[in-house]
């Protein structure tokens, strides 16, 4: 630098200009000398052979010669003047070069023809943390990264050898000991004569660029992987609709590669109507320059899929829209699920059964209208409240146990008492379904169920009421059926027994030797008496037959109407059982008939008094007393004897005695007094009712006639 070159490494400018002027002067002198030689020779020749042409040539040559001499003189003058100016210019140029080199944002260096450093600016020295002298002593190679040193030095040496431009990268140790990437460029330089004198070069710190490029590459790789691995379909289309980019998902879904799509549009892939919609969307977004979120339907291979697309214009560096980028996610299934969920929610809302959802803490997060209505409130009244709020306090422990079981088993049911907001309680059926938390393994049956759960509540008020009514109706029907069967059985039994009794009666009378008329009368009287009893039983089945009423009824049937007042009945109310009623009726009928035919009532003044009183135990003593004129005064002895015979030895008295012994479980005693028969019957008039049998009411007492 300090030898014969200026700051740029080239020969000093003043010297270079001087040399130019010296060359011009020498050339002019040589040309003048040449012309002079030519002039002398020509002059010698023309003088020997003078012609007009020679004269013209002579003039021209003389002129040129003079001109050249003038030029040479000027050149010499200029040479002398410019020499001083060049020296000053050289100094200025060198100062400018230094100023430029030192202020350059990059490292600038010069080398000689052997590649040794002859200059480097301060920026480089600061970067390296070294001195110019150290660099000049080829110390620059020591600062190279050991891994780069040999390669770089060899490359530079090769370039120097052939004096070729040089460009290489290497890592250079900086002042703090770290290495930074440097791009080294060198340009061969030569002197004014074109001789190679070394390199001028600059070192550009590319560490930041490399790092930025690495970061960019990494970012681009991440973006590429994201786009390639994205479950969404990603694509970029030119403004003319042709595809610029598609990701792997696009390829997988539509079985096309980017190469397949070169120069193709949506119209080459999708049906025209679908492609037209897509194209319209793209154009609108490109024109507006605003990103849009929209749903797009695509039909591919006969299947319609719905996509949620985010589309936005793609701009170049100038901000001009050059393409449209889209990211589309297949939401066909999710849309279907949303519809299903909406349907389910609507169904739950319209359900007549109560449904609620509880969070993991047992608080209501959803309550349908039926649920709230059952509990006398609105859904808002329960959201956030705990489940115990709708259960009667006494039932909460039991329901909690069932709830815990649901968490273990998935589903349980129970019945409990619900509690309305106003505190009233009612019967409910609860179904609890516990859901597993989303994080648990749904395939594991033992996975804990600590997530949300569902509460289904059915108001059983009407059901319970209906069940009770049904049970009561069923019980009533069963009871009626049982009673009907019992009645039928008893009716059958009664009819068969009555027929048997009638047969017995016929047999008795037939064996008594009565004639047909007598037999008929006897049977008729007994049958009518039994009919009367049957009337009393069947017409007022809810009432117990009273002895007084029974005797009066039999008397009315057995006696002529005008003799009805001849019978006196006296005694307290005495109920008579149905079985005993028939026996009493037959006994009374037989007694009244005998009294009319053979006893006191045969006389118009005769009377019969029947009295009764309770005796020991359940025995009732009935006394029959006939009073009338003495038998001897009203009839002949023979007739009286016949009466005695009939009364004592006929069918009637044994029949009465038998009935009293069997049906009435008592006894019969009688005597034929002068005024008529006097008899005493000891009888149990009614069976002892079972302890749990309802008491049959007694009818109102009728007035005696």
């Amino acid at each position: 630098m300090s030898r014969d070159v200026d700051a740029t490494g080239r020969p000093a400018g003043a010297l270079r200009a001087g040399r130019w002027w010296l060359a011009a002067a020498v050339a002019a002198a040589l040309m003048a000398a040449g012309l002079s030689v030519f002039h002398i020779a020509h002059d010698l020749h023309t003088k020997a052979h003078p012609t007009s042409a020679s004269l013209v040539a002579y003039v021209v040559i003389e002129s040129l010669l003079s001109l050249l001499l003038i030029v040479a003189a000027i050149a010499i003058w200029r040479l002398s003047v410019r020499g001083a100016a060049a020296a000053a210019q050289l100094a200025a140029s060198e100062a400018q070069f230094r100023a430029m080199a030192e202020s350059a944002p990059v490292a600038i260096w010069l080398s000689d023809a052997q590649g040794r450093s002859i200059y480097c600016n301060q920026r480089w020295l600061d970067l390296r943390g070294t001195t110019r002298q150290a660099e000049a002593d080829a110390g620059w190679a020591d600062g190279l990264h050991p891994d780069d040193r040999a390669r770089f030095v060899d490359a530079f040496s090769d370039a120097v050898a052939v004096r070729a431009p040089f460009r290489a990268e290497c890592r250079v140790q900086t002042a703090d000991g770290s290495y930074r990437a440097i791009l080294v460029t060198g340009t061969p330089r030569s002197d004014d004569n074109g001789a190679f004198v070394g390199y001028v070069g600059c070192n550009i710190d590319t560490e930041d660029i490399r790092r930025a490029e690495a970061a960019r590459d990494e970012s681009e790789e991440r973006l590429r992987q994201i786009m390639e691995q994205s479950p969404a379909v990603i694509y970029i289309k030119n403004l003319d609709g042709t595809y610029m980019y598609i990701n792997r998902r696009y390829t997988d879904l539509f079985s096309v590669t980017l190469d397949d799509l070169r120069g193709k549009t949506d119209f080459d892939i999708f049906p025209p109507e679908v492609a037209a919609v897509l194209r319209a969307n793209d154009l609108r977004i490109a024109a507006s320059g605003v990103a849009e979120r929209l749903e797009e339907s695509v039909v591919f291979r006969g299947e319609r899929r719905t996509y949620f697309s985010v589309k936005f214009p793609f701009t170049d560096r100038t901000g001009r829209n050059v393409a449209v980028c889209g990211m589309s996610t297949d939401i066909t299934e999710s849309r279907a699920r949303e519809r299903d969920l909406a349907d389910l929610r609507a169904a739950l809302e319209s359900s007549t059964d109560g449904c609620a959802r509880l969070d993991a803490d047992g608080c209501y997060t959803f309550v349908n209208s039926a649920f709230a209505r059952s509990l006398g409130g609105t859904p808002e009244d329960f959201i956030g409240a705990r489940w115990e709020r709708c259960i009667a306090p006494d039932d909460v422990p039991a329901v909690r146990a069932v709830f815990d079981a649901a968490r273990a088993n998935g589903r349980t049911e129970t019945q409990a008492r619900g509690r309305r907001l106003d505190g009233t309680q009612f019967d409910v059926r609860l179904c609890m379904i516990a859901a597993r938390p989303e994080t648990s393994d749904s395939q594991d049956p033992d996975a804990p169920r600590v997530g949300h759960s569902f509460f289904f509540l059915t108001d059983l008020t009407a059901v319970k009421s209906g069940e009770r009514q049904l049970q009561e109706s069923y019980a009533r029907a069963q009871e009626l059926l049982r009673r009907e069967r019992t009645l039928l059985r008893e009716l059958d039994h009664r009819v068969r027994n009555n027929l048997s009794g009638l047969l017995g009666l016929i047999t008795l009378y037939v064996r008594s030797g009565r004639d047909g008329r007598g037999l008929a009368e006897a049977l008729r009287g007994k049958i009518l008496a039994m009919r009367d009893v049957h009337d009393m039983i069947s017409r007022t089945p809810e009432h117990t037959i009273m002895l007084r009423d029974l005797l009066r009824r039999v008397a009315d049937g057995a006696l002529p109407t005008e003799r009805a007042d001849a019978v006196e009945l006296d005694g307290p109310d005495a109920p008579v059982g149905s079985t005993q009623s028939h026996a009493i009726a037959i006994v009374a009928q037989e007694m009244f008939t005998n009294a009319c035919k053979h006893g006191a009532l045969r006389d118009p003044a005769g009377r019969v008094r029947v009295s009764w009183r309770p005796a020991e135990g359940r025995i009732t003593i009935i006394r029959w007393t006939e009073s009338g004129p003495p038998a001897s005064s009203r009839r002949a002895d023979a007739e009286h004897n016949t009466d005695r015979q009939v009364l004592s030895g006929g069918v009637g008295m044994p029949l009465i005695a038998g009935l009293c012994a069997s049906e009435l479980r008592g006894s019969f005693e009688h005597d034929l007094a002068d005024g008529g028969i006097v008899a005493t019957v000891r009888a149990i008039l009614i069976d002892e009712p079972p302890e749990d049998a309802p008491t049959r009411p007694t009818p109102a007492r009728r007035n005696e006639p």
Partner: protein
Amino acid sequence: MNAQTSPAQAWPSSAQRILVAEDEHLVAAELTLTLTELGYTIVGPASDGDAAVRLAQMGNPDLVLMDIRMPGRDGLSAAREIYSTYGIPVVMLTAYSDADHVKEAESAGVFGYLLKPASADQIRAAVSVAWSRFVAHAQEKSVAADLRRRLEERKIIEKAKWAVVQANKIPEPDAMKLMQKTARDRRITLVDVAKGVLEKAGLSPS
């Protein structure tokens, strides 16, 4: 007559004495007259179940003709006791025709079931069939009891025979001959000899 007397007892071809148990006097009278006309001797009539049991014990009837529904103890209960205790067959004469009563009568062990009102022929046939069934049943029971008795005697004799074999170290036929000879000599049955052998050997006959 009692069904639990000796198995070798010869049964008459028909029942002679019939106990009538009927609480309704007219029906009882009809039955009594009918049975009397049919040649039977009447015991009773009894007007309730307890009276029927008493008369069955005391009146020595061959057969009982009994109503079901009677005051106090009912006829089925009385029939069960009369047959199980006194071995007297019972024919039910009742106005109940439902299956429940028939089934109850079967379980009570009655030999006939007659619905009221019954004619004389029906009563005669029912009594005759019931008596025949009863006699056949009693004879089967007698034969079975005799077989059981003989089997037990055979077991005792066999057991005694082996006791003699072991005590006298003689063959089995000789032991049997010895026991038979002892029975002949002492004019007692072979089973009595066997019981004596077992008693002497300190063995139980059972």
